[in-house]
């Protein structure tokens, strides 16, 4: 490849370089990671919770974390096997990121032909999905998303029960929302998933209500306490919120010839749910992942047919689509998160 690049003329070289990266989605994802960096979150809470997962030792405003115990239990396991808290934090969440990419690759292998896989990944990662993993290092989101991707690769009922239960253990509310959204869009057998959710919810109920030293404040209570402030932010910047939903992935949404009613319904539900939370883009991206999955499939077909996407009567070539991945925006409350810790605060 390098020999070929050096022999060709400069514009041709650029095209070849673009094409080279577009055929290797992991390279494009690495460029996004290098450009935007990683942000850690919930480190203090991880310290406290993984040290004693059965003792209520978090302040009320953080007690909703007891509803997402998967990573804290993993951390507790490692810490009780001699690993210090900081190493355990990076280990648990680093493994989550690895699992996320492995599961994404498995889902791409299941759904797409070999020649379409990189394109599909590039289209899908044009949504803020990658930033959810990079900017929220400390949340259980990679485990939740990985379990969802793996759910897409299997029809075995028992495996689906396990994966659904893992999703609930990673985040009980978001897991239920994602699985419900997927149910609306994908008419696959749902009994195993429902059983997994029921098992996961039952285990979490037993954990929070009987095994913890006292019952924690729920996410619902937290959201209700902040609802007015969050609504004011949404009302002040509705367009910004809309842009921050899909980010560059909007280009694939808007260039489609048709949009299913069920997809529009899931989009609206995800928007309402995310508007009621502080971490808007993160919540929207996770809940709407079944929509992104479906639109990606259609977009790949369209791109294969036309060799790119048509924007304002001009064709945007398939080889350059990965560049869209680099134009990301992430909304958290009144903050716009950007590359390497650069934040912009919007007024009310």
């Amino acid at each position: 490849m390098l020999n070929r690049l050096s022999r060709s003329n400069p514009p041709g070289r650029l095209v070849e370089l673009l094409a080279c990266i577009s055929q290797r989605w992991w390279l494009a994802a690495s460029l996004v990671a290098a450009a935007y960096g990683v942000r850690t979150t919930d480190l203090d809470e991880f310290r406290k919770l993984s040290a004693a997962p059965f003792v209520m030792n978090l302040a009320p405003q953080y007690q909703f974390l007891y509803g997402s115990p998967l990573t804290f239990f993993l951390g507790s396991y490692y810490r009780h096997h001699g690993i210090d808290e900081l190493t355990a934090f990076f280990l648990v969440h680093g493994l989550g990121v690895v699992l996320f990419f492995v599961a994404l690759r498995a889902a791409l292998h299941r759904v797409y032909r070999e020649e379409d896989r990189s394109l599909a990944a590039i289209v899908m990662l044009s949504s803020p999905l990658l930033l959810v993993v990079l900017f929220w290092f400390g949340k259980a989101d990679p485990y939740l998303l990985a379990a969802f991707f793996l759910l897409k690769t299997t029809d075995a009922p028992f495996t689906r029960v396990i994966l659904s239960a893992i999703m609930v253990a990673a985040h009980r509310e978001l897991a239920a929302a994602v699985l419900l959204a997927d149910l609306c869009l994908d008419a696959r057998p749902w009994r195993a998933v429902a059983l997994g959710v029921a098992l996961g919810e039952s285990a979490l109920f037993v954990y929070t209500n009987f095994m913890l030293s006292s019952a924690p404040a729920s996410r619902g209570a937290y959201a209700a306490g902040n609802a007015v402030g969050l609504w004011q932010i949404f009302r002040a910047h509705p367009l910004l919120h809309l842009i921050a939903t899909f980010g560059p992935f909007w280009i694939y949404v808007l260039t489609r010839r048709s949009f299913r009613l069920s997809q529009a319904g899931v989009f609206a539900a995800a928007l309402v749910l995310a508007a009621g939370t502080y971490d808007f883009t993160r919540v929207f991206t996770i809940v709407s992942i079944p929509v992104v999955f479906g639109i990606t499939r259609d977009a790949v077909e369209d791109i294969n047919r036309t060799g790119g996407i048509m924007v304002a009567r001009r064709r945007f070539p398939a080889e350059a689509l990965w560049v869209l991945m680099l134009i990301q925006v992430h909304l958290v409350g009144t903050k716009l998160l950007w590359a390497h810790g650069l934040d912009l605060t919007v007024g009310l």
Partner: protein
Amino acid sequence: MTDAAREWVTRNLPWAVVVLLALWMPPVLYALAVDVGVVKGTGYPALIDPMMVTAVSELSLMIAALPRLLNREAAGWHLLLWSRVVVLAQTVWLIFVYTRLDGLAATLRSRAVVEAAIGLAVAAYVLMQIRPLYQRDRA
């Protein structure tokens, strides 16, 4: 076990091994890192400690078994069986050491021994059940 259950276990066994390796390897690697001075710490088993030797052997056998289990080769099944034999040796050593400190009855009731015994019993049952599904090694 039903045929469907055997098939499910055989198909998913490599991934179960990956999960177990993700859980068991970091503590052993961390102890090794302390031993060679990369990480500061005290109270970790030394490299020549029988517990450490058996833990490293067990994990090595599991790693070696992984690609063969994916191809459903008999060699993978045998390596996994040997990894359990190593755990059995480790448990016997544990009982021997703890008995000198706490007495046999207290040692057999200890959490580490009970967990190891249950784990070994389950692993032995599952491995024997799925044995016919592993084809002979290719020449």
